[in-house]
C-alpha cells in the first residue's frame, strides 16, 4: 500500500472513531467516557491486534498532530475574550495559578526522583498539568518522551475531573474563582469541561487558569529542573 492511502485511512478512521465516541460521551457524560480516552484505547487496541506499528499509523496521524501547534496559538482567543475577569481579580487568580504550577512541577519531580525513576520519565511527568500540546513540547525540550508526557496529561486530566470536584467540596472551595483556578490549573482542558458544567463564570476562570498555567509551566519547568535535578 502506498503511503498516501495509509495516511488517509488512518486519518479517516481516527475522525470516525472520535465522532462516535463523542456521541457516546454526550449521551452519558461519564468522565471515564471522555472521547480522547476512549478513542485512544480503541485505536491502540486496533493497532496492537493487527500488529500495525505506531509509525505506520502516524503517516496519517501526523497531520492531526501538526495542528496541535496552531490549536495552542488559538488559545490566545479565549484569553483575549476573558481578559476582563482576569483584570478584576488579577492577584487572586495569578497567585493560585503560579502556586499550583510550582506545586505540580516540584511534587512530580521530587516524588519520581526519590523513587529513582529514569530522567526521561521524570522530564515527561513534570509538565503533566498543562494541556497536551504544551506538555509534549515542554517534555521534548527537556529531553523527555512527548507521548509519555501526553499519557501523564491524561491521568492528570481524567483523575482531576473525577476526584477534583469532590475534593474541592470537602475543603469548602465553593467560590467560582477557587473552583475554576483549581480545575484549570490541575486538569487543563478536561477540568474546563467539568467547570463549564457549573456555569460560564467558573468555565471562563478555568480557561484562563489553563492558558496561563501552560505559559507559566513552560517557563518554570526548565528552571525547576535546573535547580532540583
Amino acid at each position, binding site marked *: 500500500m502506498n503511503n498516501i492511502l495509509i495516511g488517509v485511512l488512518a486519518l479517516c478512521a481516527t*475522525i470516525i472513531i*472520535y465522532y462516535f465516541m463523542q456521541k457516546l460521551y454526550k449521551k452519558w457524560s461519564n468522565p471515564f467516557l*471522555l472521547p480522547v480516552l476512549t478513542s*485512544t484505547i480503541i485505536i*491502540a487496541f486496533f493497532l496492537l491486534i493487527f500488529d500495525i506499528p505506531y509509525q505506520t*499509523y*502516524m503517516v496519517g*496521524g501526523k497531520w492531526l*498532530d501538526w*495542528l*496541535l*501547534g496552531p*490549536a*495552542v*496559538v*488559538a488559545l*490566545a*482567543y479565549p*484569553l*483575549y475574550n476573558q481578559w476582563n475577569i482576569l483584570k478584576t*481579580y488579577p*492577584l*487572586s*487568580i495569578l*497567585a*493560585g495559578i503560579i*502556586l*499550583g504550577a510550582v506545586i*505540580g512541577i516540584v*511534587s512530580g519531580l521530587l*516524588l519520581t526522583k526519590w*523513587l529513582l525513576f529514569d530522567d526521561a*520519565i521524570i522530564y515527561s*511527568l513534570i509538565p*503533566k*498539568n498543562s*494541556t*497536551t*500540546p504544551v506538555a*509534549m513540547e515542554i517534555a521534548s*525540550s527537556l529531553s523527555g518522551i*512527548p507521548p*509519555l508526557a*501526553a499519557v501523564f496529561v*491524561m*491521568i*492528570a486530566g481524567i483523575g*482531576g475531573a473525577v476526584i477534583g470536584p469532590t*475534593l*474541592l467540596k470537602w*475543603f469548602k472551595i465553593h*467560590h467560582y*474563582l*477557587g473552583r475554576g483556578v483549581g480545575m484549570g490549573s*490541575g*486538569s487543563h*482542558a478536561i*477540568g474546563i469541561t467539568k467547570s463549564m458544567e457549573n456555569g460560564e463564570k467558573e468555565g471562563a476562570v478555568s480557561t484562563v487558569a489553563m492558558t496561563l498555567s501552560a*505559559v507559566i509551566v*513552560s517557563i518554570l519547568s526548565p528552571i525547576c529542573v535546573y535547580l532540583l535535578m
Partner: protein
Amino acid sequence: MGNVRNIGTIILQIIILSIFYLIGTWIQAFFNIIIPGSIIGMLLLFLLLMTKKLNVNWVSEGSKTLIKLLPLLFIPATTGIINYFHLFSGRGVLLFPIALSSTLMVILIAGTVSQYLGRKRLRNHE
C-alpha cells in the same frame, strides 16, 4: 453557499493561526528559547489582539473551531502510549498514583489560594 463561505473563512483563519505557530517555532529555534514555539506564537497573537493591531474577527472562527477539535487532535499523540507500555509495568505502576496525587495537590492548593484572596478582595470592595 453561506456554508461554503464559512468553511473558507475557517480554513483561511486556521492558516493565519498556523503562520503564528511557524513564526513562534522560528523564534524559538533562532533564539534557542526553551518555551515551546506554539506558546510563543500564542503570546504573539495575544499581544497583537490586545494592542488592536489585529482584529479579533480575523482569528475568532478558526480559533473556536480548533479549540472545539482539540480532543481529536490529541488522539494521535496519546496513541503513542503503545510504544511505552513497558514503562508502566512493575515499579512503573507507581507513576499513576504519583501523577494523580500531585494533580490533586495542585487543584486543592491553587483553588484554596484563589478563593481566599478573591473573597478578601470582594470584602474590601463591599
